[in-house]
Each structure stands twice: as structure tokens, then as C-alpha cells.
């Protein structure tokens, strides 16, 4: 049972991948951009879900997937035209299947309301087409199916059965062995085997073909169906007919679908019959001599297969690799970079005669390592598409539930981000879309009155910006109603009625953990999860979330995330005798403190003048409560906080830029305010990676330093 659940868990993991693929393919098809391979891929996804569902007995899912599959099969067989209507049904069918998979995983739940509607639509589509049950019966082999029918219909319900067993020419070629067959048949009550006296003449003997027919007598308690089931496996290559019925000469019949197992390299198996003309023999003949290199052989042989009922092969070769293996590689490369940095450092310390040459080698090694690292990271990179493609469904579902109309416009789906980031994106994106649908987009009537398009527009985009990816969710709804937000915040005691807040501060309230609670949220936003969850999640990924509210016209959430959670470019600085890493993406410039005008403010804080602007000047040493060191805090690093503009961070010294491998503090410890992680320096010591906005929050006391027991 436990095992079974493991398989199920695995299956559901796979299902999610399949459903993502499916959604993607269906979108492509709906956009009219699909080709046969897209249809095939979509079919295969549905089929695989069905296969798994069948294995685990998820009945609702099986029957739905079956109908869905039938429709897909008709499309790929060109028996059904892919019209806009059909596409739209397929899209909805994909959504329903996703819900059914989720329910199967959760072990039940109300079937989704649209299940029946979509099922009916699918059935309607399938029935329009003049094909019976969607099964391709065009080239059914009459003789064989007759034989089956006869066997089933005419067998007397007695304990003695007699059959004529005539192995076809492929019997051995198909992996059977008459002896094994008789042995197994004995378990089913075989009592007598009589060889048929009619034997081919010696000249015609083919050692690969069994020239004999046998009459088999069974005395058994098994029913005709039981025996039939047993025979089922042999029917493909042998004629098994109940005695007494006129049957065609089995040898001749079999010859007609003889295909050529025996190959020229095996002279003793030289084919008895000339190859029939129906088969694409020339290609095969050509292929046979290449036996020692069967992969290329298989590749060549696949081309002529295209017209067979089997699907054409996929063009892109890909390999599915366990993420853990890649992680190990990433770690290893990280370690190598560290070792290399250590080596390089020692090289500069110990200059000797060959120093220059060795230096040179160390340098190229460094370059190669970096390249290696980039390649490894590229393996982990995935287009955000895998997450984005799930979002149209979210919007469709919400539109249904809320009786609103909206369309989702996706851009930059090909933007690649590290897979660890991708995995974490789905949840915050879903929340943001829910927020837009629930609170942003107005109902169609209101929109019409306002002179807006009754169909709301939500844009979801992704783009690279330096070492970060920017994801924007923008809607053209009513924006954030500041009066309502403020009223609610006062009601929830988040702010006092006397507080004077500027509009942006009011907007920020929606990110407050206490803002959205279960008592208030609609079924859509559900479970009392609000935008605070989004913010927390994004921050935990080392990202930022910025809101621009345009009341009446819409809102825009901009998420900035690191491309990867594994490596980053950093600037190394020292403070209080310890090295720290600042994310290079937030470093604007570095200046000597002595060259700038510093002013002390009455509240004991300082500002630094820089090109006519005054920047807050913060001492890293003081912020982190580090001991004083001999060196002066001579450098100021000007940083972009993303939320509070630029600040100047005063440090002891600037060491330089380097790429660092991110290590988690949380894995063995906990989240430390002001620190986003750590890295290992060339000498094996740990350096902390500073989280600039976090540091500022720490300073401003908005987030009390996490303190401990005692």
C-alpha cells in the first residue's frame, strides 16, 4: 500500500509536468500555430495521464481522459477539424483534467461543476465525426477477428475443448517457443497434443518457421473465456481455432502478413517466401548490414515509419535528469571555484620564477571553470513558460466564478530562470492574479459604464534585466481603492485613525500580514491568504515586490527576482575585519568617503552629498554591531535599495568583484535579518551576503532583529 502511494506520488509529479505540457500545446493549437507534432504531443500527454489513472483506478479521471483522448485522436487522425470552438473546448478540457488530477491526488472532492459541461462538449465534438467510438478500424484484419469471434461464439460450454493450433511463420520471430507454449497450456488443462500429419515438403522447410500444426485437447474446468484469454497472447502469431469449424489454410493466411524477421546475415534463416510488396522493404534491407551500430540503424529506420499508425518521432532530443544530480554538479563546480580562487590567491602571494606561466594557466582554468559553471547553470534554467502556462487557467476559472471577463496576455515566456526559482513562482503569481481578478478587474457592466472594454486585460510579462528577472503583473481594473484600504487597515488596527499616510504608504498596507483575513476574503482569494504571502515569498527568494497603483486605471506589481538561487555576482567588502558580499546588482558605485561632503543630521544620522543629492550614509560596522578595526571606514558603496532609493553604505575597504556560490544559512540555522545567505571564500571561510533592503529595514526597526531564547 505504501509502495502504491509512492508510485502515486510519482505519478502525480509526472502528471503536473504532463499537464503543463498539455496546457502549452493546447495554447499553441488554440493560437492556430500548432502542427501535427503539437497535436501528437498533446495526445500523448492526455494518454499518459489516462494510463496512469488506469493503473491507479481513478475512475472519473480515466473516463474523462478517455473521451478527451478520443477527441485528440480524431484531431491527429484528421477526422476532426481544429476549429476555434474545438480549441476552446480542448482548453477547458485541459483545465478540467487538471482539477480531476488534483482531486485524485487529494483523494476525492466534488467533481468540478464544469466537468459535465465540458464532457458533454467533448462528446458532442467526437460524435459529430462519422467514426465509431473513435477507434481506427479501417484496416482490420478480417480473418483474424473472425477466428476470435468463432472461438467465442461456438465453443460449447463443456470441459473438453479441442483446438487446431497453427503457429504462423512469425511464431518464433515474435519471441515464442512451442515448447514453452505447451508447458503453459498444460497449466490450463492441456491433455493431448497431436501433430497434424500435413507437413510441408523438405524443400520448403524454413528452420525459423514451424511447419507443423497441432490439435490440442484440453480437459479443464476453465471456461471458454479463460482459455481464450490464455490464447490471446498467441493469437497474434498463431491461428488457434476450435476444431470442427472450417478454417482457411493457416499457412497461406499467415504468409500474407509475413514480414521479414530473418536477415541476410543469418543464412540458415533465409526467408522462405519473397518479401511481400506491401512493406517498405528496401529501407529495411539497407539497414540490416548496419547491425553493429543499432542506434543509427534505429534512427534510419524511423523515417519510413512515419506513415504507419504509429506517431512520427519527436525532433528535439532531451534527457530527463534528476535535479539532485544537477545540484550535485552545481555544488561541485561551486567547490571548484572556491578551490581555484584559493589557488589563485596563493599564486599571487608566492611569486616565483615560473610564476607568470603558472599564473596564466590558473587564469585560463578560472575562465574554463566559469564557463563550466555557466553551462551547468544553463541546464537548470527553464523558460518561465512552465509557470506562465498555468496562469491562463487561473484567470479563466476566476472569470467563471466571479462572472467577470478577462483575458491574460503573456509576454516573455521564453525568459529563462533557474528551476528553483521557477518552482517557487507559481504560488505568488497565482495570488497576484487572484488579487487582480478579485479586486482589480470590474464586472463587465461597470467596465462598460466606465467606457472600458468589458473584457478586462491582465498582462503578465517576464524579462531579464542584468542578473535579475523582472516579472510584471498589470491589470486595467479599478486599481487599489485607497479609502477602502485605509478604512480596513484602521478597522484591523494596523494603523491608528490619527496616522497620516501618504498614498503610497496606504498602497503598501495591502502587503501587511494582518490586512487580509479569513472573515473578509471571498471564496476566490480564499483561506485568508493575502498579498503579504506574495511579498514574503518573493523576499524569501531574494526578490523584491513593488506596487504601482493608479486608481481607476489599474495596478501594476513588479517582482524582481534573482535568475538563480545558486550563484550571483557580488562585490566583496570588509568591515570590522570580516568580509561581506554585496549583490553586484544593487551596487551603483563605490566612492571614497573622504572625497565627499558628509553632514551630520540632528538625529545623529549622516547624509552624504553625491551629485547634488543627499544620500543616507550608513555604517555597516554599526549596523552589524561589528568590532572596530584599525582601518577607517573609508569606502562608501552606493546601493540601490529598490524600494527606498539610493543609500551609501560605509565600509572599511573594497576588495573587488567576484562570483559567489550561494549557500543557505537556513539549511542548518535560520533566516538572519539583513543577510540573504552566505558563501565560502577562497580560504574556506564563510562570508555573509548582505540583503540591502533587509539591512535598511533592520536599521529602521520595522523588523525587529530576531532574538532568541533565554
Amino acid at each position, binding site marked *: 500500500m505504501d*509502495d*502504491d502511494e509512492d*508510485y*502515486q506520488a*510519482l*505519478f502525480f*509529479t*509526472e502528471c503536473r509536468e504532463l499537464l503543463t505540457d498539455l496546457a502549452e500545446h493546447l495554447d499553441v493549437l488554440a493560437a492556430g500555430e500548432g502542427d501535427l507534432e503539437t497535436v501528437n504531443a498533446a495526445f*500523448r500527454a492526455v*494518454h*499518459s495521464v*489516462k*494510463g*496512469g489513472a*488506469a*493503473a*491507479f*483506478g481513478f475512475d472519473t479521471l480515466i473516463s474523462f481522459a478517455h473521451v478527451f483522448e478520443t477527441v485528440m485522436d480524431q484531431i491527429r487522425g484528421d477526422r476532426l477539424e481544429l476549429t476555434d470552438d474545438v480549441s476552446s473546448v480542448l482548453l477547458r478540457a485541459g483545465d478540467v483534467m487538471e482539477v480531476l488530477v488534483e482531486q485524485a491526488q487529494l483523494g476525492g472532492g466534488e467533481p468540478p461543476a464544469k466537468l459535465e459541461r465540458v464532457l458533454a462538449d467533448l462528446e458532442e465534438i467526437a460524435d459529430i465525426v462519422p467514426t465509431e467510438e473513435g*477507434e*481506427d*478500424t*479501417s*484496416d*482490420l*484484419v478480417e480473418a483474424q*477477428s473472425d477466428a476470435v469471434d468463432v472461438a467465442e461464439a461456438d465453443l460449447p460450454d463443456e470441459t473438453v475443448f479441442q483446438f487446431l493450433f497453427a503457429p504462423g511463420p*512469425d511464431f*518464433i*520471430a*515474435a*519471441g*515464442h*517457443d512451442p515448447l514453452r507454449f505447451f*508447458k*503453459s497450456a498444460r497449466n490450463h488443462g492441456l491433455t493431448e497434443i497431436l501433430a497434424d500429419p500435413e507437413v510441408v515438403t523438405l524443400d520448403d522447410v524454413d528452420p525459423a518457421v514451424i511447419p507443423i500444426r497441432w490439435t490440442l485437447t484440453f480437459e479443464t474446468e476453465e471456461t471458454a473465456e479463460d482459455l481464450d484469454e490464455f490464447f*490471446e*497472447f*498467441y493469437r*497474434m*502469431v498463431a491461428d488457434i481455432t476450435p476444431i470442427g469449424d472450417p478454417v482457411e489454410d493457416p499457412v497461406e493466411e499467415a504468409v500474407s502478413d509475413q*514480414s521479414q*524477421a530473418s*536477415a541476410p546475415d543469418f543464412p540458415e534463416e533465409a526467408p522462405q517466401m519473397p518479401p511481400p510488396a506491401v512493406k517498405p522493404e528496401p529501407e*529495411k534491407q539497407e*539497414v540490416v548490414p548496419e*547491425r553493429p551500430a*543499432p*542506434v543509427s*540503424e*534505429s534512427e534510419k*529506420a*524511423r523515417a519510413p*515509419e512515419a506513415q*504507419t*499508425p*504509429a*506517431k512520427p*518521432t*519527436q525532433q528535439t532530443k532531451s534527457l*530527463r535528469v534528476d535535479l539532485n544530480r544537477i545540484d550535485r554538479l552545481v555544488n561541485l563546480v561551486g567547490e571548484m571555484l572556491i578551490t581555484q580562487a584559493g589557488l589563485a590567491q596563493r599564486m599571487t602571494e608566492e611569486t616565483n620564477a615560473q610564476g607568470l606561466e603558472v599564473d596564466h594557466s590558473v587564469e585560463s582554468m578560472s575562465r574554463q571553470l566559469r564557463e563550466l559553471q555557466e553551462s551547468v547553470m544553463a541546464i537548470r534554467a527553464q523558460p518561465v513558460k512552465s509557470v506562465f502556462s498555468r496562469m491562463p487557467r487561473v484567470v479563466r476559472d476566476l472569470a467563471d466564478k466571479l462572472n467577470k471577463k478577462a483575458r491574460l496576455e503573456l509576454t516573455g515566456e521564453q525568459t529563462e530562470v533557474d528551476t528553483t526559482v521557477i518552482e517557487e513562482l507559481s504560488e505568488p503569481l497565482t495570488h497576484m492574479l487572484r488579487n487582480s481578478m478579485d479586486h482589480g478587474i470590474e464586472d463587465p457592466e461597470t467596465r462598460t459604464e466606465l467606457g472600458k472594454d468589458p473584457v478586462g486585460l491582465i498582462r503578465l510579462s517576464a524579462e531579464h534585466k542584468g542578473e535579475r528577472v523582472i516579472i510584471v503583473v498589470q491589470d486595467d481594473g479599478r486599481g487599489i481603492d485607497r479609502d477602502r484600504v485605509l478604512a480596513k487597515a484602521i478597522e484591523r488596527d494596523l494603523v491608528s485613525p490619527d496616522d497620516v499616510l501618504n498614498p503610497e504608504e496606504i498602497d503598501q498596507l495591502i502587503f501587511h500580514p494582518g490586512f487580509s483575513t479569513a472573515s473578509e476574503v471571498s471564496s476566490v482569494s480564499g483561506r485568508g491568504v493575502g498579498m503579504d504571502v506574495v511579498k514574503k515569498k518573493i523576499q524569501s527568494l531574494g526578490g523584491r515586490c513593488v506596487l504601482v497603483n493608479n486608481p481607476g486605471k489599474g495596478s501594476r506589481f513588479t517582482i524582481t527576482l534573482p535568475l538563480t538561487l545558486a550563484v550571483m555576482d557580488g562585490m566583496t567588502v570588509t568591515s570590522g575585519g570580516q568580509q561581506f558580499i554585496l549583490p553586484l546588482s544593487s551596487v551603483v558605485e563605490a566612492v571614497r568617503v573622504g572625497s565627499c561632503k558628509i553632514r551630520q543630521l540632528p538625529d545623529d544620522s549622516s547624509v552624504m552629498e553625491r551629485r547634488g543629492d543627499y544620500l543616507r550614509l550608513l555604517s555597516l560596522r554599526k549596523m552589524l554591531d561589528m568590532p572596530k578595526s584599525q582601518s577607517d571606514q573609508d569606502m562608501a558603496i552606493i546601493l540601490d535599495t529598490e524600494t527606498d532609493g539610493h543609500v551609501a553604505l560605509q565600509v572599511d575597504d573594497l576588495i573587488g568583484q567576484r562570483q559567489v556560490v550561494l549557500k543557505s544559512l537556513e539549511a542548518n540555522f535560520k533566516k538572519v535579518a539583513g543577510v540573504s545567505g552566505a558563501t565560502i571564500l577562497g580560504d574556506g571561510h564563510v562570508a555573509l551576503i548582505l540583503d540591502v533592503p533587509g539591512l535598511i529595514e533592520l536599521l529602521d526597526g520595522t523588523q525587529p532583529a530576531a532574538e532568541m531564547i533565554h
Partner: protein
Amino acid sequence: MTRVLAVDDTRALRLMLADCLKKAGHDVVVASDGVEALDQLRTHKPEIVITDLNMPNMNGLEFIEEARKMPEGQTVPILLLTTETAQALKDRAKQVKATGWLTKPFDPDQILGLVDQLA
């Protein structure tokens, strides 16, 4: 103990099949598509093969057709295990010299029985 090659692109089903066979004491190698299966066939020379039909890269039928051209695959029993029921596909299976056609969901006893019976 029989050496069995289990081929399925769905990881869960592949593992389930493999484990079912392993528990019965068989020696199991796996592949996730036809191309891989050919490789496994060559390297491990299984005594029986159980393969899915719909798979990327190279499907079950294509695999059987290729396998039958290889010395290791010429007479090895190859069972197709699939949810497909179309007669055309079954005919095609016969053409490429599949040993048998099984319908999913698979019945472990049936599979194990067949392994004993055929290999």
C-alpha cells in the same frame, strides 16, 4: 529469476512495473523510450521485454521492429502493455512481431504469470 526489460515513459508506471517484477525475484532493467530500450536490450540481453506503446522518441511498435533486427532481440518475447485498443495498432503489433498485447491497468499476477510462461 528472469531478466526483464521494462519500458515505459511514465516514470511512475515504469517503477511500479519494475518493482512488481523485482519483488517476484526477477532481475529488472528499465528504459523510458524505445531508443533507450534498444540500448538496454543490447547491453543486458533480457529474456523478456514488457513495453509501453505510446512513448516519445521511439514508440513501442518502432522499438519492437528494431529489436527484431538485432541478434539480442530476434526471439526475445516482447509484450506490449498499453491502454490502446485500436485493432489497427494490434495489427501493426503483429506485423512487427510483438509477442503479446496486454491492456493497462496491468494485473501484477498476470504479468508475473506471463513472464514465467513466456521466458
